[in-house]
C-alpha cells in the first residue's frame, strides 16, 4: 500500500506478530513516522517538559478549576509534521488519517481501568466536519468509549485566556450514568481549558478520579 501521508509505496510488512496478535496495519512509512515527536515525562497533567506541574497547569490549579484533573499526559509534540497531519485530518477532513495513531493509542489505552470519555463536538460543528475526529481516533484503535458530555456551540477561538478560563457551561452532562473513574480524551491540548471545563462538569456530577490524555500538546 501507499503511505497515507506522503503517498509513496510502502513494502508490505507481514510479521508473525501481525498474524498472531492481530496487530493493526501500519499506514504511514517509516520516514513520515519519524517526523512525529513523542513526549515523555514533564508536567504530570499535560507532559510539558520541565520539573513538576507546568506554568499553565499551576495557573489552573490556583483558579476555580483547581483539582478537577488528577493526572494526565500528552503523547506528541505539535511540531511541523504534526501540524501538517492535523491540517489534513481536521481541515481537509481526510477521515482515514485517524488510523495513523491507532497502534499507539491502542497500546496506551489497552489496560485502561477508567471509562474513556472523548471530548465531544457540538452538533453544528459535527455536521460541518462530517465526522468526529476525536471519536474516530478511538474507533480506529478499537478502543471502547462512552460519551458523558454534550457541548454547546461556543467559539473558543479569538478569546483571551482569562475569558476562556471564565467560560461557563460549555459542556453539559448528557444523562448517562457516572462512573467512579474517567479518562478524558482529546486530540489537541492547547491551553487546557477544554479539558478543565469538561472535567469540572464530571466531578460536579460525582466522578471521583479524572485522568486526561491528549494525543498532541500544542
Amino acid at each position, binding site marked *: 500500500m501507499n503511505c497515507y501521508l*506522503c503517498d509513496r509505496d510502502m513494502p508490505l510488512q507481514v510479521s508473525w506478530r501481525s498474524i498472531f496478535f492481530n496487530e493493526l496495519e501500519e499506514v504511514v512509512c517509516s520516514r513520515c513516522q519519524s517526523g512525529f515527536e513523542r513526549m515523555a515525562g514533564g508536567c504530570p497533567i499535560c507532559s510539558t517538559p520541565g520539573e513538576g506541574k507546568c506554568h499553565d497547569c499551576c495557573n489552573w490549579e490556583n483558579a476555580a478549576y483547581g483539582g478537577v484533573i488528577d493526572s494526565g499526559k500528552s503523547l506528541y509534540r505539535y511540531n511541523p509534521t504534526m501540524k501538517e497531519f492535523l491540517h*489534513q485530518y481536521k481541515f481537509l*477532513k481526510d*477521515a482515514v488519517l485517524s488510523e495513523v495513531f491507532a497502534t499507539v493509542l491502542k497500546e496506551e489505552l489497552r489496560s485502561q481501568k477508567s471509562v474513556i470519555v472523548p471530548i465531544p463536538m457540538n452538533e453544528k460543528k459535527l455536521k460541518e466536519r*462530517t465526522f468526529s475526529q476525536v471519536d474516530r481516533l478511538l474507533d480506529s484503535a478499537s478502543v471502547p468509549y462512552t460519551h458523558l458530555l454534550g457541548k454547546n456551540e461556543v467559539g473558543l477561538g479569538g478569546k483571551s485566556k482569562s475569558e476562556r478560563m471564565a467560560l461557563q457551561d460549555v459542556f453539559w452532562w448528557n444523562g448517562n450514568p457516572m462512573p467512579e473513574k474517567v479518562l478524558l480524551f482529546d486530540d489537541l491540548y492547547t491551553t487546557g481549558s477544554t479539558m478543565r471545563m469538561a472535567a469540572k462538569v464530571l466531578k460536579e456530577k460525582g466522578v471521583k478520579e479524572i485522568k486526561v490524555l491528549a494525543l498532541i500538546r500544542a
Partner: protein
Amino acid sequence: MKRIEEFLTGRLWLRNFSPFPKEQVDQAISDGSVTVTPGILDGRQCARCLEKSVKKIIPFFCAACNTICYYCRHCIKMGRISSCTELITWALPSTIPPQSHSFRWNGSLTPLQERASQEVQKSLLQKNDHLVYAVCGAGKTELLFPPIYDALKNGLRVCIAAPRTDVVLELSPRLRTVFPNTIVHSLYGNSPEESGFASLVIATTHQLYRFKDAFDVMIVDEADAFPYSYDPALKRAVMKAKKKEAPIVYVSATPSDDLVKQVSNTSKIFQRFHGHPLPVPEFRSLWSYEKSFAKGKIPPKLAAWVDGKIAKGEPFLLFLPTIELIDQAIVLFQQKHPSIEAVHSKDEDRKGKVMKLRKKQIPGLLTTTILERGITIPNVQVAVVGADQPIFDAAALIQIAGRAGRSIDYPNGDVVFFHNGIVLQMDKAKKLIVSYNGGGVN
C-alpha cells in the same frame, strides 16, 4: 451574474467554496444558468479528478448526511469531494464578448524553431494533435508564441498545462509580457485568486481537475515529465479539461514511444538554440555507495568531484535516488562545506534554495528528481548518484543531463552518472543524447 459566468465557464467548482455569496449562487442555480452535479458519480468515481480506485475513494460514516458517504483522497488538497458535496458549472452558452489581443515580442526564431512553429500552427488549424519533440534548451516556449497568438485572435481559449508549479511560475511572466492585453490566469496550488475570464490559462496539470470542456487548444508542456507520465489521472484531466474536438500540442524533450506513435504530426528540433551540442554523460563507477553513506562516509570519487567544483567555484547539482539517502548524505556534505543544501518535493523553500544556487550564494544542491526540469543555472555542473536506480529512467536522465550547458556563455558542463553497475536506461539515455547531437533519430 457576469462575474459568475466568467468564473464558472468551463469550470467545475465546489458549491460550498465558491467565491460568490451563497444567495447569488442559489439564484443562478434556480434560474438554470448554473448546474449542479454530485461530487461522487455512480460507480464511485470522483467527478472532479475522475479517480475511481478503491484505495482512493473511501467510505466513511458521514454525519452530514447520516449515512455512508464516499470521499476522494486523490484530489483532497483542493477541498474534499464526497458523495454529499456538490459541484457547480456554468450551464448556458457563453455571452462573454471576444477580447482583443496583442503580441509584443522582438526575439527571433532559429530556422528550426520557425519551421516547427508553422507546423504547430497548421495542425491547430486542422484540429490535429501535434508533438514538438525538442531537446532541452531548444527554445520550445518561444516557438509556441505565434500559434498561441493566432488561436487567441480567432477567439479560442488556450490552456498551457505544465507538470509542476515551478514550470508554471517560469512560463507565466514570459507569456504575460508577450500578450500584454490578454487576461492570463496562472493556476497552481495556493495561487492567488484572479478575476475575469482568462483566454489564456497556464496551469499545473493538477489544476485541470477543476475544468471541464473548457479549452479550444490544449498545450501540454513537458509531456511525459514526472509526475505526468506516471499518473493516469492527470492524462484524464487533460482530456476532461479540453473541449472534445480541441487539439492537443504535446511538447517534450523525452516523449515516450507511445506518445510518438500516437501523434502523427511531429516537429523535431535536436539542436539547442545556441547551436552547441548537448553535453554527453560520462559513466563513473561508484561501488556500494549506499553502504559508504550509511557508514558516514562520502565515496572518495564523489567527494573528489564535489571538491573540484567547490574549488573552481562552479555551481553543482547532485541528484540522488531517494529522500532517505539525501537525509544521510546532506549531513556529510555539510561537513565538507556548511552551506551545501538539500531540496526535495515537499521542501517549502525549494525556490529560495535554487535562487541561492543561481546567485552563487551556495556551492551546490543535493536533490531528488524533482529538480530535473525547468531550472536554468548558468555553468551548472551535474552529477547523478545511483544512476542505475529505477527512478532514473532514460527520460529522467536525459532531462537531468539537459540542465547542463544551457546558457550561451557556458555551453558545456560536466554530466557524470555515478553508478553501481551500468544499466540499460543509462545506455539508452547516452545513446539518445549522442544521436541528437548527430542530427537526431527518425
